[in-house]
C-alpha cells in the first residue's frame, strides 16, 4: 500500500519538478526500506495524507506531534451517535469502488475474507475450525520436539554449518585427520551450551504460558449465567465478563459495560507500555441489551482476518437486523487491563495466537555492528589464506606423489597395497589415485586448518557483549533515580558501535526536554499574564481539588476572573471562555480518587488527569488552578467545577485533532442553551480562521506568541464562536453524516469542521514550558567536543526550536546561521545553493563528507529547514547533504516521523559514519529503527520508542557516559578482541602448516588431536573473554575530561585493515619463530613427534597468552587469574592427556619437563616471537604517540602525584 502511495507521490512530484526518473527510483527504494518496519507501515501511509480514510484522527492536541498522529497508539473515537441505517448501501458502493480503485488497504471487511463470529455461540462459530483456541504458546519446543527442532534452528547459523561440514568431512575414512570424538567435540560443546541455554529459556516460557493459560475468566455459559473458565478453554464467540483491574483474556468486541453510555477505560501497558487510560466504547445498540448478569445480544460479527496492526480493526455486527460497523474503538485487546470501570461484557473475536498482542510479539530484525561487517571482510581474507595454504599442501602432495610414484608400494612409511597374504592381498589400501589423493589432501588440510576461520570468535564476541551489557546495565551513573529506571540493553549486537558515533539525531520534546509540561504564560484577550506572582493565601484556600502538580498562579488573572463587578465586560467573558475552552476542549479524562465526594467532605479530593497529551494535561491542570476544574467527562457531556459551582456542558460534537487542520474543536451547549464552538490549535492554523482580523487583540496576541516562542515556550491559540441555530443545524447534519460515513470519513469530518471553524473570536494564547532535562547543555557540549555532530529533528516551529537550541548550547553566538526557510521546492533549492556558495561548500562525491568537513568545520553553522521537507529530501538530497554535513549543528523543524527516518537514512546511505537516533515517542520509532544505533528514552510518552530501540535509558544526559565511556571501552575492547582472535587462531594454523611442509605434506599434526581441538576452546579462550569484557584503557574520569578521546573510534583506531595486515605479518613471524626454534633446538636429536608437539603446544599457548598480557591496559586481579591461569590449565590438560596410557603421547610432558632445554626453548620462543612487536610498540609510542597513549600517561603521572 505504501509503495503505491509513494509511487503516486513521486510521480506527482516528478511531474511538478521535472525530476528525472532516476531520482524517483532511488527514492522509491528508500520507501521500501521504511516499509520493513511493521509498526510504521500503516501509519506512515496515512501520514502522507493521501486522502485515505484515516479512522477518526487522533486526539492529539500538541503541535509537536502534528505530523505524528498516525503513529499514535490507540485512537479514541466517539461513536455514540446512533447510526444511520443506509450504510448497507454505502458498504456495497464503497466495495465496488474499491474494486475499481488501485489500492486496497484492507480497512473494509471483504465478505470473502471475513470470518464470522456468532455471539454467544462458540460451537457454531468454531464449526469450520477457522479460529484457534485461546491457549497461547510462546515456547518453541516441547519435550519431544526439543532436540530435533533446536538442532534445526541452531544449524541455521553459518558457523555451525561450517563446524558440521568439517566434522562430517573428518568422518570420511580417507580424511580422518582427527579421531571421531575429538573432531566432534567443538561442535558438540557449542551445541550443548546453546541447547542448554535455549532449553532454560524455553522452560521459563512454558512456565509463564502455563500461568497465563490457567487464569480464570467469567464466561457466559449455556444456562445463561457467568461461570469461571480457564483462559485456554475460551473460544471465539464466547461472551466474557471482565471486572475492574482484571486482564483481558483475548481480543474482544465490547457489548456493554457498567457505564450506561458504554464506556470502558483500559490500560494498555502490556501492549504499548503507555500507562495512561484509554477509552473504548460499546456500541449504543448493544449496551441496552446487556446487564451485569446477562447478555441478550445475539448476532453475527464479521471481522477481518487476524493481523498485527494494533491501531486498526474492521468488522461489522449484525444485530436486530441492522448491520453495525465496528472499528478500533470497539475492541479491547488481550493483555490490556480494565480500569475505572466495574465490569465489561464482550464477545471474543480473536483468541490465543491470533490476538494482536501475540501477533505483535515478534522480535525486531537484529542489527549488525559495523565492526562485525569489517570483521567479516577480514574473515574473507582469512578464508583466502586458508585456501592458499590448503592449495599449497595439495600441490606439495601432488609433486611428492608424482616423484614417489614408483616407490609408493615399497616406502616403509607409505604402503598403498596389502602385501601380506590373506583375503585382501594385492588390494589397494586407502589410495584413490593421484588426483583423488590431491583432493583428499586439500580437504584434510581444510580439516587441520579449520580454526583459521575463527568460528569461536562469534561465540566469544557474544559472551563479551553480554559482559559489556552487564556493565552498562549496572552502571549507577546511567540509572535514573527520579523514576527508578535502569539502563537497558535491548540489542546485544551493536555495543561497539557506540564508540564510533559521528551523528546524533535527537528528538527534542521528551528527549532534550523533560516533557513535563508546565503552564507558564497566558495571553488573554491581548493581555499578557504569567509573570508568576505569589498567590495570596485567601485565593489559594478556595481550591478544593488537589492536583498532582502545583501551578504558580498569576494574581492579576485570578482577580480578573473573580471580579464581581461588571461580569459581562468583554475581557471578563473572554477570560471565562478561555478557561472553559481549556477545560472542555481536550480529551483528558479526570480520574477522581476515592469515593464520590460528598457535601460534608471538606477534605481535599485529589484528581488525576489521564490523557495522551501532556500539553492537554498541563492546560487542564492550569485551568483547575484558576478555579475551572474538569470534573467529569463522558461522551455526551462535560462537568466543570467552577469555584464550587458545577456546570454541566453538553457536548454536541467534537472534531478531534488531525494533522491537516492542526486544531481541535468542540461544540458545547451551555446550561443557558447557548451553543458555542471552542477551538484550540497551533498558531499557524488558527490565525487564518479568526474573525477579528488584525485588530489590537490580534496584534497583541501575535506579539505575545512571538515572545513565548523566543522563550522556548510551546504555544497554542484559543478561540471560540457562538453558533446560531441555522449554523448549528447545518453543522449537525453534516457532522452526523460524516461521523457515520464508511468511506472518506475523515474528509467529510474535516468538511463539517470547516463549517464551524471559521470567523472565530480570538480568546488568547497559552505558553507551556517544557523544561530542559538536567545536564543537557553540558552533555551536548561534551558530545560536540567529542566530534559528534548533533542534529535536532523536531516537530516544533522554528522560533521554539532555535530558542531551545540556544538554551541547550547547541547554538552558540559565534556560529554562522543558515536558515533555509522556503515554501516551494525551487525556492528551497535556491537557498541551499546560495548557502553553499557563500560558505564555500564544495560538492562532494558519495561518502566523501569527512574530508570536506575538515576544511570548513570551524565555520560552525546552523541550518534551519522549515518547509514541506519531504519534497526537499527527495529533490535536494545532495544539496542538503553537502551543506548539512559541513555544518556542526543542524536543526530541522516541522519534521514528520517519516522525514526523521529519511534524514537519518540520507546520512547513513551517503557516508560511512555511524548514526545514532535518540527519542522518546512513537514519532521517533522510525528514526530509531533506521539509525545504526537507536536509543530510546523511557519518558512520559509510553514505551514505543523503547520497544523499538537498541538501548533504552532514562535521560538524555546519560548519552555522555554511554558514548564517551562505555562506547569507547566497548569499541576498544571488541576491536582488540577481534584482532587478537584472528592472530591467535592464525598463528596456530600457520605453525601447523609449517610442520606439514616437513611431513611430506601428509597433514600430520605433531600436536595431539585433543590439543588441536582444545586450543581455541579451552587453552586460550578464557583470558580472551575476560580481557574483552574488563580491560580498560582509560579511566572514565579521563574519558569524560577529554571528550576528544572519542575520536579514536571515529578514526577506527582499534580496528582497521592496516592493523589487520600488520597483525597478520606479526602472526607470520611469530608462527615461524614458534615453529623453527624448537626444530632447530632439537635438530639432530632423538626427539619424538609427541614431545615436539607437546613443546609446540605449550610454547604457542604461552606465546599467545603473553602476547595478550603485553596488550592488557589495566591489570586487575581477575585478569591475572585468567591469563596466568590459562597457562596452568593448559599444563593441567596436557598432564591429563599424557597420563592416559592408551594415547601414544603417554608420559611425554614428564619427560620434557625434566630437561632444561625444554624450558629455555620456551623462553627463547616467547622472547624472540614478541620482540619485534614489543620494539614496534615502543617505537610507535615514542615517535607517534596516540591520544589514548598520552592520556594514559597523564593518568599515570597524576596518579603518582596523588591527584587521583
Amino acid at each position, binding site marked *: 500500500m505504501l509503495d503505491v502511495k509513494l509511487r503516486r507521490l513521486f510521480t506527482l512530484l516528478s511531474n511538478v519538478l521535472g525530476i528525472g526518473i532516476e531520482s524517483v527510483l532511488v527514492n522509491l527504494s528508500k520507501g521500501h526500506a521504511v516499509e520493513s518496519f511493521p509498526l510504521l507501515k500503516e501509519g506512515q501511509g496515512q501520514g502522507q495524507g493521501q486522502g485515505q480514510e484515516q479512522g477518526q484522527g487522533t486526539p492529539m492536541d500538541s503541535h509537536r506531534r502534528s505530523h505524528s498522529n498516525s503513529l499514535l497508539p490507540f485512537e479514541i473515537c466517539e461513536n455514540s451517535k446512533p447510526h444511520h441505517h443506509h450504510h448497507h448501501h454505502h458498504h456495497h458502493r464503497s466495495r465496488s469502488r474499491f474494486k475499481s480503485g488501485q489500492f486496497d488497504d484492507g480497512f473494509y471487511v471483504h465478505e470473502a475474507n471475513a470470518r464470522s463470529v456468532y455471539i454467544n455461540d462458540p460451537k457454531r462459530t468454531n464449526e469450520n475450525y477457522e479460529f484457534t483456541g485461546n491457549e*497461547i504458546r510462546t515456547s518453541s519446543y516441547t519435550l519431544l520436539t526439543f532436540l530435533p527442532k533446536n538442532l534445526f534452528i541452531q544449524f541455521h547459523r553459518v558457523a555451525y554449518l561450517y563446524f558440521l561440514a568439517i566434522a562430517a568431512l573428518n568422518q570420511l575414512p580417507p580424511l580422518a585427520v582427527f579421531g571421531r570424538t575429538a573432531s566432534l567435540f567443538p561442535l558438540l560443546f557449542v551445541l550443548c551450551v546453546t541447547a542448554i541455554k535455549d532449553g532454560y529459556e524455553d522452560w521459563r516460557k512454558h512456565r509463564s504460558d502455563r*500461568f*497465563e493459560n490457567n487464569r480464570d475468566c467469567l464466561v457466559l455459559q449455556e444456562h445463561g449465567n457467568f461461570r469461571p473458565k480457564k483462559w485456554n478453554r475460551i473460544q471465539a464467540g464466547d461472551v466474557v465478563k471482565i471486572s475492574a483491574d482484571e486482564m483481558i483474556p483475548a481480543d474482544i468486541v465490547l457489548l456493554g459495560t457498567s457505564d450506561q453510555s458504554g464506556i470502558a477505560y483500559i490500560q494498555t501497558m502490556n501492549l504499548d507500555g503507555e500507562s495512561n487510560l484509554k477509552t473504548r466504547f460499546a456500541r449504543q445498540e448493544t449496551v441496552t441489551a446487556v446487564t451485569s448478569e446477562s447478555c441478550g445480544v445475539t448476532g453475527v460479527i464479521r471481522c477481518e482476518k487476524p493481523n498485527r496492526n494494533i491501531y486498526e480493526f474492521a468488522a461489522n455486527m449484525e444485530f436486530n437486523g441492522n448491520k453495525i460497523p465496528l472499528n478500533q474503538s470497539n475492541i479491547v485487546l488481550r*493483555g490490556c487491563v480494565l480500569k475505572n470501570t466495574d465490569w465489561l461484557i464482550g464477545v471474543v473475536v480473536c483468541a490465543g495466537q491470533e490476538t494482536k498482542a501475540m501477533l505483535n510479539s515478534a522480535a525486531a530484525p537484529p542489527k549488525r555492528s559495523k565492526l562485525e561487517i569489517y570483521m567479516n571482510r577480514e574473515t574473507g581474507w582469512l578464508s583466502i589464506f586458508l585456501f592458499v595454504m590448503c592449495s599449497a599442501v595439495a600441490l606439495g602432495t601432488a609433486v611428492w606423489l608424482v616423484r614417489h610414484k614408483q616407490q609408493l608400494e615399497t616406502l*616403509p*612409511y*607409505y*604402503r598403498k*597395497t596389502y602385501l601380506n*597374504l*590373506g*583375503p585382501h592381498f594385492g*588390494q589397494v589400501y586407502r589410495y584413490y589415485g593421484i588426483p583423488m589423493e590431491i583432493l583428499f589432501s586439500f580437504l584434510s588440510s581444510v580439516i587441520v586448518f579449520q580454526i583459521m576461520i575463527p568460528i569461536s570468535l562469534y561465540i566469544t564476541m*557474544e559472551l563479551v557483549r553480554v559482559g559489556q551489557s552487564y*556493565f552498562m*546495565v549496572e552502571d*549507577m551513573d546511567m*540509572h535514573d533515580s527520579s523514576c*527508578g529506571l535502569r539502563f537497558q540493553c*535491548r540489542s*546485544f549486537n551493536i555495543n561497539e558501535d557506540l564508540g564510533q558515533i559521528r551523528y546524533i539525531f535527537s528528538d527534542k520534546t521528551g528527549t532534550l526536554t523533560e516533557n513535563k509540561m508546565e503552564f507558564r504564560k497566558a495571553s488573554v484577550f491581548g493581555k499578557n499574564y504569567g509573570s508568576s506572582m505569589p498567590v495570596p493565601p485567601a485565593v489559594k484556600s478556595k481550591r478544593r481539588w488537589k492536583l498532582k502538580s502545583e501551578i504558580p498562579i498569576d494574581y492579576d488573572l485570578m482577580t480578573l476572573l473573580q471580579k464581581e463587578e461588571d461580569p459581562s465586560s468583554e475581557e471578563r467573558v473572554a477570560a471565562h471562555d478561555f478557561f472553559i475552552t481549556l477545560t472542555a476542549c481536550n480529551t483528558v479524562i479526570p480520574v477522581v480518587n476515592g469515593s464520590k465526594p460528598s457535601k460534608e467532605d471538606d477534605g481535599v479530593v485529589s484528581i488525576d488527569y489521564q490523557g495522551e497529551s501532556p500539553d492537554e494535561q498541563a492546560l487542564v491542570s492550569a485551568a483547575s488552578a484558576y478555579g475551572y476544574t474538569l470534573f467529569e467527562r463522558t461522551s455526551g457531556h462535560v462537568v466543570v467545577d467552577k469555584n464550587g459551582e458545577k456546570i454541566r456542558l453538553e457536548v454536541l460534537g467534537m472534531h478531534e485533532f488531525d494533522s491537516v487542520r492542526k486544531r481541535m474543536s468542540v461544540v458545547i451547549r451551555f446550561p443557558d442553551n447557548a451553543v458555542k464552538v471552542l477551538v484550540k490549535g497551533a498558531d499557524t492554523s488558527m490565525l487564518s480562521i479568526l474573525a477579528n482580523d488584525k485588530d489590537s487583540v490580534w496584534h497583541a496576541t501575535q506579539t505575545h506568541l512571538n515572545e513565548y516562542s523566543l522563550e522556548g515556550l510551546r504555544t497554542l491559540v484559543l478561540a471560540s464562536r457562538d453558533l446560531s441555530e441555522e449554523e448549528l443545524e447545518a453543522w449537525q447534519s453534516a457532522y452526523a453524516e460524516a461521523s457515520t460515513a464508511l468511506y472518506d470519513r475523515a474528509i467529510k469530518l474535516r468538511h463539517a469542521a470547516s463549517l464551524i471553524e471559521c470567523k472565530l473570536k480570538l480568546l488568547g494564547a497559552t505558553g507551556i514550558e517544557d523544561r530542559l532535562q538536567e545536564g543537557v547543555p553540558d552533555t551536548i557540549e561534551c558530545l560536540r567536543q567529542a566530534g559528534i555532530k548533533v542534529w535536532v529533528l523536531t516537530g516544533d516551529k522554528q522560533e521554539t526550536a532555535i530558542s531551545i537550541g540556544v538554551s541547550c548550547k547547541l547554538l552558540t553566538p559565534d556560529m554562522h546561521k543558515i536558515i533555509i526557510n522556503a515554501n516551494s521546492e525551487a525556492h528551497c533549492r535556491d537557498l541551499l545553493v546560495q548557502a553553499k556558495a557563500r560558505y564555500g561548500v564544495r560538492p562532494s562525491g558519495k561518502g566523501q563528507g569527512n574530508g570536506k568537513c*575538515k576544511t570548513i568545520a*570551524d565555520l560552525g553553522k546552523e541550518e534551519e529547514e522549515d518547509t514541506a521537507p519531504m519534497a526537499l529530501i527527495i529533490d535536494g538530497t545532495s544539496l542538503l547533504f553537502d551543506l548539512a554535513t559541513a555544518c556542526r549543528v543542524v536543526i530541522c523543524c516541522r519534521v514528520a516521523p517519516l522525514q526523521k527516518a529519511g534524514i537519518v537514512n540520507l546520512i547513513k546511505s551517503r557516508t560511512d559514519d555511524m548514526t545514532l537516533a535518540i527519542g522518546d515517542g512513537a514519532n521517533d520509532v522510525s528514526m530509531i529503527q533506521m539509525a545504526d544505533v537507536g536509543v530510546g528514552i523511557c519518558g512520559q510518552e509510553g514505551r514505543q520508542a523503547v*520497544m523499538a530501540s537498541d538501548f533504552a535509558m532514562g535521560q538524555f544526559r546519560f548519552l555522555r557516559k554511554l558514548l564517551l565511556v562505555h562506547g569507547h571501552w566497548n569499541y576498544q575492547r571488541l576491536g582488540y578482541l577481534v584482532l587478537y582472535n584472528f592472530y591467535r587462531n592464525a598463528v596456530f594454523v600457520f605453525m601447523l602448516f609449517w610442520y606439514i611442509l616437513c*611431513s611430506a605434506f*601428509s*597433514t*600430520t599434526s605433531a600436536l595431539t588431536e585433543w590439543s588441536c581441538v582444545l586450543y581455541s576452546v579451552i587453552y586460550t579462550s578464557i583470558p580472551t573473554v575476560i580481557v574483552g569484557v574488563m580491560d*580498560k584503557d582509560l579511566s572514565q574520569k579521563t574519558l569524560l575530561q*577529554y571528550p*576528544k578521546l572519542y*575520536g579514536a573510534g571515529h578514526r577506527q583506531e582499534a580496528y582497521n585493515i592496516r592493523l589487520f595486515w600488520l597483525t597478520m605479518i606479526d602472526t607470520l613471524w611469530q608462527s615461524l619463530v614458534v615453529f623453527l626454534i624448537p*626444530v632447530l633446538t632439537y*635438530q*639432530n636429536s*632423538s*626427539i*619424538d*613427534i*609427541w614431545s*615436539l608437539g607437546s613443546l609446540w603446544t605449550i610454547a604457542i599457548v604461552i606465546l599467545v597468552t603473553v602476547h595478550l598480557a603485553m596488550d592488557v591496559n*589495566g*591489570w*586487575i586481579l581477575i585478569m591475572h587469574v585468567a591469563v596466568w591461569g590459562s597457562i596452568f590449565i593448559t599444563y593441567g590438560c596436557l598432564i591429563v592427556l599424557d597420563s592416559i*596410557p592408551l594415547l601414544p603421547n*603417554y*608420559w611425554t610432558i614428564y*619427560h620434557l619437563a625434566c*630437561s632444561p*632445554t625444554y624450558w629455555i626453548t620456551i623462553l627463547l620462543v616467547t622472547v*624472540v616471537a614478541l620482540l619485534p612487536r614489543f620494539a614496534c610498540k615502543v*617505537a610507535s609510542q*615514542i615517535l607517534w604517540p596516540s*591520544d589514548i597513549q*598520552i*592520556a*594514559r*600517561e597523564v*593518568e599515570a603521572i*597524576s596518579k603518582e602525584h596523588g591527584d587521583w
Partner: protein
Amino acid sequence: MSSSGAAGAGSTDSTAARRNTKRPKYSKFTQQELPACKPILTPRAVISAFLLVSVVFVPVGVASLLASRKVVEIVYRYDSKCIPKNVTNKVAYIQSSADKACSITLNVTKHMKSPVYIYYQLDNFYQNHRRYVKSRSDEQLRKRGEENETSTCKPEDMVNGRAIVPCGLIAWSLFNDTYSFSVNKRNLTVNKKGISWKSDRNHKFGKDVFPKNFQNSSIIGGAHLNESIPLREQEDLIVWMRTAALPTFRKLYGKIEEDLKEGELVNVTLNNNYNTYSFNGKKKLVLSTTTWLGGKNDFLGIAYLTVGGLCFFLALAFTIVYFVKPRQLGDPSYLSWNRNPGGH
C-alpha cells in the same frame, strides 16, 4: 544471544519491567572502578626491560654454548661406504641375502666421558607421515587379549588371516642395522638396557605380549623379533615406536659405559641391513656424550647470545632516541587535536 525480548503480553514482560527498575548496587566491580595496575612504557621501563632480557639471555647463551662445546660427537655416514663398490643396484643388494657386514673406523678426537651414547641417524625417512604415525595399535601392544585390535594397522595388520603382533608399518619397518665396537681389538660392551622410556616399557608394552607372525610376509621391512621375548623387553622396538618428529632423526641404539680416550680408534663392525636406498635415505652412526643441555647443538647458545645482544643494542638505541627526541610523558601538546588544531 536472543536480541530484544518479545513484547508479548503476560507476566514475563511485567517481571522484566520490574527488574529494570531495581537500582544497581554499587560495587567497584560493577562500576568498573577496581584498582588496576596500568603499565606504561616509560623510557625507564622500556630500557630496563631490554636490559633485563639481555642480562638474562647472555649468561644463558654463554652457558649453553659452553655446554654444547663440551659435547664430543662423532658422526659417520656409512650408507654409501658399506656398499661394495661393484654393486650398481643398491636396493637389490640390500634386499639380497648377501653378507652385509661392513667395518669402519672412528677416530676419537677428544676425550669422551662415559656414558657414550650410540645413535643411528636416518635421513629422508618420514616417520612423521600421517599414514605411518597412525599405523600402530596401542591396545594390542599393551594387552595380550587385544591382539586382534589391528584395524588401525592396515595394510600391515594380518598375514594369512592371523593378526600380526606388533602390527602396523612402524613395527614392520623396525631398524635392523647392528653395530659392535672394539678399541684396540678389545670389544666394547654396548648396553642396550634402559635406552627406551621407562613409562613406555611399563605401561605401553605388555610383559605378556609376545611377537607373533611378525615379518612373516613376503616383504620384510626390517628387524625380526624374538618371539620368546615379551615386547616390554624389546627395547629397540620401543625406541623405534616413538616415532620421530622430523624426517631427519636420531634414535638411541645403546650406551658404551666407559670413557673413550682422545686419539683412540674405534673399530665398528656393522651389519648394513636396513634399506634406506629405496628412498635415498642416509644412514649415519653417531657417538656422542651429553651434558645438561642434551647433545651437541650450538643453536640455543648462539640464539640466546644474539637475542641478548640485540636487546642490549635496542636498549642503547632507545636510550639514544629518548635523548635525541625526548617526549615528555603525558605532554598534552602531542594530542592530535593540539597538533593540528581545528581538524577533527
